[in-house]
């Protein structure tokens, strides 16, 4: 039978209870415990013991301890602590600088990361009704794709039918696939971000109107509201209100409002808002269910629930639309759009992912841990130098408690100084950080109370984390051992320090492996054969004026020697996403396959250097077969599919040629099959796609010669200006457009690179500090070895060996961790690299080399010192 009280409870009592009361309390508790064991058995007795221990934790027993030892001289003592702390800092300026630089860099990172995270979490939060604003998405039964917009009938119908709705707004953005030409006097620009919106726009969103009446600004047809930025671009210093802008060289719009530039953390970024009533085409004005191009927002009443509204939508839609196939409509809260990646739609900002915030935050914590470890390590390594002071203080009556306070205070002081440094570093690093994170923060953004408050909290936490171990160790020295003069750092202290250094290097090595994997994957995606050539390919908007005499335009353009090729398409290949479905009646009456569609000119394949697998591309004759003069039911469409589109039907390209095909109301046949090509990111599998024969194009694609690019571009521009004076020469490079698909991977690789560099940098500070103290401690040993004939080289190797072992251990731990983590990340890609040995070897060699260089300087100095200098003292 266990007959002694719970050990831990006893320990707690001993540490917390004042010494004067301790004996009495513990004696009484033990007696009661013995009694309770007899009465109630050991379990209950232990329970009572615990209870009694806690009952002694009152203000009375704990507060006693202070009053006796230090009351009047509290201030004097703290002044003394502070003085000693400063003396210690300035006595070893190098060591202190290392320490503070490490902590400062760590906290500066934390500050920037904090700012970024708060910014991201604050997305769209400025909309007052945001918590009850929802964007409507739709999804057709049996289809995977979620459409982030809705028919234009949806919002008005629902507002009429559902009393739960306060208001709603539709946003139509044509600009993304055919920009507007906006003109005021001689200022003409192509504009993408011109949205048609309902007059309720300002009821739903809290964008600030600087001029104009939010209730009336978007009511009348041909009203336009523009941002400050656009006002300056078109009107300069002129007053924009009441002026007119000419759009598409046809309609005049009256400026009825100027709006503050949307904040950077808004998911909607626009330049112009045009009243919905400005549409002239019945297609837009009528409420119809056969479209889905309107990003639709609903604002619910305070107490309405989104799920109940969601549940009522199908019934209403069924009644009003009379369609056979009703999509599922879902409501997604405005606040979730940015971070959860639900996505708004059609050129309303690409979404960030929560994942990146986690990675950011996680790395921030890692860096802080590394910096704190530096402090802990250096402080305990230096304990030898403080031992006499501690012993003396204890002899003179200091309690452990006082010394603990003193050392915690020191760590707070150092962290505070590092904190000031961090503020400075953050300000200096802000521009590069902006570039990295693709944000536009200004210095004032850092002084917001939530950012500063957060970082002060972080600093406090770091001070505690870094200071607690040294304070515990240092305050625990026994005066008799340290004052006898033979004090050496304890074995457990050395082990602890080695452990901490290992942790640092585990983190660093893991980050290096991560970085190189991300880099490799990025390189792989950029270098992989796309299946077409996108080098030096310009993408330009097409206007009807060019299209009217395109053959002449093309031959004129081709006369310029640097124009190598030219073709037309509905979209650039990176933006093929229109959803069609195809049925091959000869193979399967029922089977419907979703395909992406691209309308392209006859010479498209040649111009993009794509490969045909079977059949031919769309021919002149095919185009004639669908001419306007032919009644629509007699038109025969020729389709060219990619291999992937055939896969679900299980036929070979040769078999497919000539098979009847049906595609969204088009009857036709398969004319040819092209080799699969990457039109989307390599995260996704190549999707089924089809070329359509209709001549309805939006883009001109021009391949120019890559030599002397700038010169070539200006020559092409000149010719373009001459031939199409009304169409601005606003080009995009196809390869850059494609690379943009990887902007988040690019961002990640930069981030990883930077942080891996920083962790290694800070870890090396720690290492440098440690090695310098080791060499001082072992100075005599080195001297003796030298006298006995050891060479400088062997001594350097001996000193470095310790650290090399740690790095090896760290490497063994870090590799599987990083491997696991990165395989997970790679799993998101359909086309990916395997994690080879290269990143692993790279990280090992890299870290070892850097660590070796760091330590060698110190160890070399120690090893080459004259033994006389170190040995003469005794």
């Amino acid at each position: 039978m266990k007959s002694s009280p719970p050990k831990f409870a006893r320990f707690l009592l001993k540490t917390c209870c004042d010494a004067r009361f301790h004996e009495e309390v513990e004696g009484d508790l033990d007696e009661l415990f013995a009694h309770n064991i007899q009465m109630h058995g050991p379990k209950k007795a232990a329970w009572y013991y615990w209870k009694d221990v806690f009952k002694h934790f009152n203000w009375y027993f704990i507060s006693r301890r202070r009053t006796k030892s230090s009351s009047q001289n509290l201030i004097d003592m703290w002044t003394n602590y502070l003085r000693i702390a400063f003396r210690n800092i300035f006595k070893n300026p190098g060591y202190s600088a290392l320490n503070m630089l490490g902590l400062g860099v760590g906290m500066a990172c934390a500050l920037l990361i904090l700012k970024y995270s708060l910014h991201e979490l604050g997305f769209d939060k400025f909309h007052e009704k945001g918590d009850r604003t929802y964007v409507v998405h739709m999804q057709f039964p049996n289809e995977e794709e979620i459409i982030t917009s809705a028919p234009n009938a949806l919002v008005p119908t629902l507002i009429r039918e559902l009393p739960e709705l306060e208001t709603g707004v539709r946003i139509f953005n044509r600009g993304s696939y055919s920009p507007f030409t906006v003109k005021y006097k001689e200022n003409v620009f192509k504009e993408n971000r011109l949205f048609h919106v309902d007059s309720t726009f300002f009821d739903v969103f809290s964008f600030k109107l600087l001029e104009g009446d939010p209730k009336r600004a978007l009511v009348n047809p041909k009203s336009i509201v523009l941002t400050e930025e656009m006002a300056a671009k078109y009107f300069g210093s002129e007053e924009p209100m009441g002026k007119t802008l000419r759009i598409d060289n046809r309609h005049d719009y009256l400026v009825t409002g100027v709006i503050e530039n949307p904040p950077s953390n808004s998911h909607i970024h626009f330049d112009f808002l045009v009243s919905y009533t400005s549409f002239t085409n019945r297609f837009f004005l009528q409420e119809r269910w056969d479209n889905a191009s309107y990003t639709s927002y609903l604002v619910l009443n305070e107490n309405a629930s989104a799920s109940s509204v969601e549940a009522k939508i199908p019934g209403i839609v069924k009644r009003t639309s009379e369609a056979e196939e009703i999509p599922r409509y879902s409501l997604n809260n405005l606040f979730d759009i940015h971070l959860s990646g639900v996505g708004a739609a059609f050129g309303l900002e690409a979404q960030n992912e929560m994942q990146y915030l986690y990675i950011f935050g996680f790395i921030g914590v890692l860096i802080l841990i590394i910096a704190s470890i530096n402090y802990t390590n250096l402080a305990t390594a230096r304990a030898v130098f403080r031992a006499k002071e501690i012993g003396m203080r204890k002899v003179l009556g200091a309690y452990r408690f006082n010394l603990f306070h003193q050392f915690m205070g020191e760590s707070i002081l150092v962290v505070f100084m590092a904190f000031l440094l961090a503020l400075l570093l953050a300000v200096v690093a802000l521009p590069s950080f902006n570039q990295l994170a693709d944000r536009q923060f200004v210095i004032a953004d850092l002084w917001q109370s939530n950012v500063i408050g957060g970082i002060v909290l972080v600093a406090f936490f770091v001070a505690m984390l870094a200071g607690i171990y040294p304070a515990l160790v240092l305050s625990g020295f026994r005066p008799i051992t340290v004052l006898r003069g033979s004090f050496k750092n304890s074995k457990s202290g050395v082990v602890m320090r080695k452990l901490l250094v290992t942790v640092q290097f585990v983190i660093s090595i893991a980050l290096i492996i991560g970085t190189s994997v991300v880099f490799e994957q990025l390189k792989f995606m950029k270098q992989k054969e796309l299946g077409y050539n996108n080098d030096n390919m310009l993408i330009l908007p097409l206007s009807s004026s060019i299209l009217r005499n395109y053959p002449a335009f093309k031959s004129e353009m081709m006369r310029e020697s640097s124009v190598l090729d030219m073709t037309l398409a509905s979209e650039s290949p990176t933006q093929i996403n229109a959803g069609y479905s195809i049925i091959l009646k000869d193979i399967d009456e029922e089977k419907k396959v979703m395909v992406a569609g691209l309308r392209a000119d006859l010479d498209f394949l040649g111009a993009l250097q794509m490969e045909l697998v079977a059949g031919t591309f769309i021919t002149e004759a095919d185009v004639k077969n669908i001419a306007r003069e032919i009644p629509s039911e007699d038109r025969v469409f020729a389709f060219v599919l990619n291999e992937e589109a055939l896969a679900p039907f299980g036929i070979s390209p040769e078999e497919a040629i000539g098979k009847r095909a049906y595609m969204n109301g088009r009857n036709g046949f398969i004319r040819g099959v092209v080799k699969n090509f990457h039109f989307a990111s390599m995260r996704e599998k190549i999707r089924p796609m089809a070329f359509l024969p209709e001549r309805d194009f939006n883009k001109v694609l021009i391949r120019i010669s890559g030599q002397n690019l700038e010169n070539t571009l200006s020559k092409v521009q000149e010719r373009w200006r001459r031939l199409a004076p009304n169409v601005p020469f606003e080009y995009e490079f196809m390869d850059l457009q494609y690379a943009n698909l990887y902007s988040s991977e690019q961002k990640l690789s930069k981030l990883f690179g930077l942080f891996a560099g920083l962790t290694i940098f800070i870890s090396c500070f720690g290492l440098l500090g440690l090695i310098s103290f080791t060499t001082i401690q072992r100075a005599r040993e080195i001297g003796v070895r030298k006298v006995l004939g050891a060479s400088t080289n062997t001594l350097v190797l001996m000193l470095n060996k310790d650290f090399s072992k740690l790095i090896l251990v760290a490497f063994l731990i870090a590799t599987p961790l990083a491997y696991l983590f990165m395989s997970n990340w790679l799993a998101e890609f359909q086309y990916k690299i395997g994690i080879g040995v290269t990143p692993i070897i790279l990280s090992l060699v890299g870290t070892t080399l850097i660590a070796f260089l760091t330590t060698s300087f110190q160890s070399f100095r120690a090893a080459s010192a004259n033994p006389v200098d170190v040995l003469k003292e005794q």
Partner: protein
Amino acid sequence: MKGTYLGEFEEIVLLVIGILNDQAYGVAIKNELEAQSQRTISIGAVHAATNRLEEKGYLESEFGDVTKERGGKRKKYYKVTVYGQKALRKAMDLRTQMWAQIDASSFVVKTTFG
């Protein structure tokens, strides 16, 4: 002065220490208190009270000898000081004086059984 005030619990602790005479240490006080008042009292409360009373000067204490019981921890014996005795008497006087002033007819103590 705050020190002259005697709380109810403090008062009975003092009385119990008086009853126990020279055998008044923590556990004994707790047991006697429980026996007298018919309620459960935690040792923590006893310690808090005895220490506070000692600080006020109502109690004095001395450690007993080291024995094998209690893991070699000494018992701390309490004794009521003269000052403590005075305070107790004062508290009692105050009560009797006040009881005497209560009109017996207006203050019927109901003693109903069953």
